[in-house]
């Protein structure tokens, strides 16, 4: 699994873990992110499914001691996001906070009945990674999950955008973690966004919110990250996209 440092200012770091070379082909590739604070504390953002756990733990511990993981953020309830929860709880400290959308608390209990969750209210909240590093958990409901949040770091100017901006990029088309040609990248994300994102109203509200943020990097859970002008290009593109393509099958 590759680890790319997206941002570093003294102890404040954003690490992206992706491209698990050992995973079975049937398992969808995911990006896992870790935010480290200047006081040594760290927070995992969507640490991945149980299949991703072994390489992720191995890769993470080359960068961060697992004892320093003070928080885990689950943007929503999907198995590729959260099924590793009981495994992480085994290696992290008992006091590690597990931030999950309030909507999914009772559902995620099915994965780990002994876990104690820190529910994120629908309106979102601010969480402290450690020291002066804080993340704003921004509501992104219905994009695609009905209880869904993205994480924004105003100091690093990075937005973790969960499934928003996600793409299924073939291995041979990847040369790094970032989108290099937005126009050609659209082909890898268009079908996904049309089908998985169901609410134009939620999309519009999200675009409005995110457009007000200073974002250098938008980092999704699947595929490649957007930086610089590509962030704006993505927002323009998603604003115009027709969503909810699954409805066509229902109308037949």
């Amino acid at each position, binding site marked *: *699994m*590759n*680890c*790319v*440092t*997206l941002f570093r200012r003294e102890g404040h770091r954003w690490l992206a873990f992706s491209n*698990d*070379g*050992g*995973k079975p082909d049937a398992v969808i590739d995911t990006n896992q992110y870790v935010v480290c604070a200047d006081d040594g504390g760290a927070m995992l953002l969507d640490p991945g499914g*149980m299949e991703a*756990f*072994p*390489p992720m*733990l*191995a*890769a993470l*511990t*080359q*960068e961060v*001691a*697992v*004892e320093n993981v003070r928080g885990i953020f689950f943007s929503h309830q999907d198995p590729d996001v959260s099924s590793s929860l*009981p*495994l992480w709880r*085994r*290696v992290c400290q008992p006091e590690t906070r597990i931030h999950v959308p309030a909507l999914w608390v009772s559902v995620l209990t099915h994965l780990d009945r002994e876990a104690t969750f820190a529910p994120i209210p629908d309106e979102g909240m601010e969480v402290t990674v450690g020291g002066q590093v804080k993340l704003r958990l921004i509501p992104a409901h219905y994009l695609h999950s009905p209880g869904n949040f993205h994480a924004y770091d105003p100091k690093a100017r990075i937005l973790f955008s969960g499934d928003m901006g996600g793409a299924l990029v073939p291995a041979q088309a990847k040369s790094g973690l970032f989108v290099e040609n937005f126009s050609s990248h659209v082909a890898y994300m268009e079908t996904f966004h049309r089908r998985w994102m169901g609410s134009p109203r939620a999309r519009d509200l999200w675009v409005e919110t995110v457009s007000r943020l200073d974002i250098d990097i938008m980092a999704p859970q699947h595929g490649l990250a957007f930086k610089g002008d590509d962030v704006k290009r993505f927002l323009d593109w998603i604003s115009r996209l027709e969503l909810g393509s699954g409805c066509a099958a229902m109308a037949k």
Partner: protein
Amino acid sequence: MSQTATDGGGGTGSLRSSRIETRANALLGDCRRAFHAFGELDELAENLRILSLNAELAAGRAGEMGRAVRALTQYTRELVNRLAQIQGEMNSLRARTYSLSSTILRGLLNLQLFERAAELINAGSHDGATRTAANRAFAETMRTLVETLGDMASSVEDLSRRAHGIEEVVSQSDSIATNIAIEASAAGVHEKEFRTVSDTMRHYVDDLRKMIDEASDSVRRALEKGESLRRVGLENLQTLRSNGFLE
């Protein structure tokens, strides 16, 4: 921006967990087969209960000539009550066994994932503390699994005791059927009625015996596998302890 890479490894060669997994899956399979075989116990016990009631009525109609048969049917009723008690215990045992099965299956999955993580970390350039932490996590998962396997082995022993209890009921019911047949031969006009009771009881006894034979085979195999698993688990824990990963 910097970049480092950790080999994904492909998740192969998990020797310790695969040894346990193979045995555990076989154990769970034998338990499922045993409970499946015992699935007809409800119906057979109910049949025997109704037969004992009918036999008691027939013995009443026979008056003095049915006195011995009446005593035998009352004894049959006691056996039916014993069977009902075992049946209740088996239902609890089934629920417990399936709950343990679920915990074991989850534990096995966790064990494999922790073993893969520990392999990747041991093969990487991690520091000693990280290696120890990974191996400890694996060891703790193993300990939890071995404890659950121990509980499962105890459940299988309980199941074996219940199966033995049913065998006793079957054997005693067989004797009662024989005695009713003997009484029938001296019951004059009631012979046919008593013989029907005896024959029907024999038929139920045969069904029960067949059920027991099928189930006992699975229970015996489950007992052996439970014991073998317990040994493998304890050996693994011993190794992990001697390597300093468990206290």
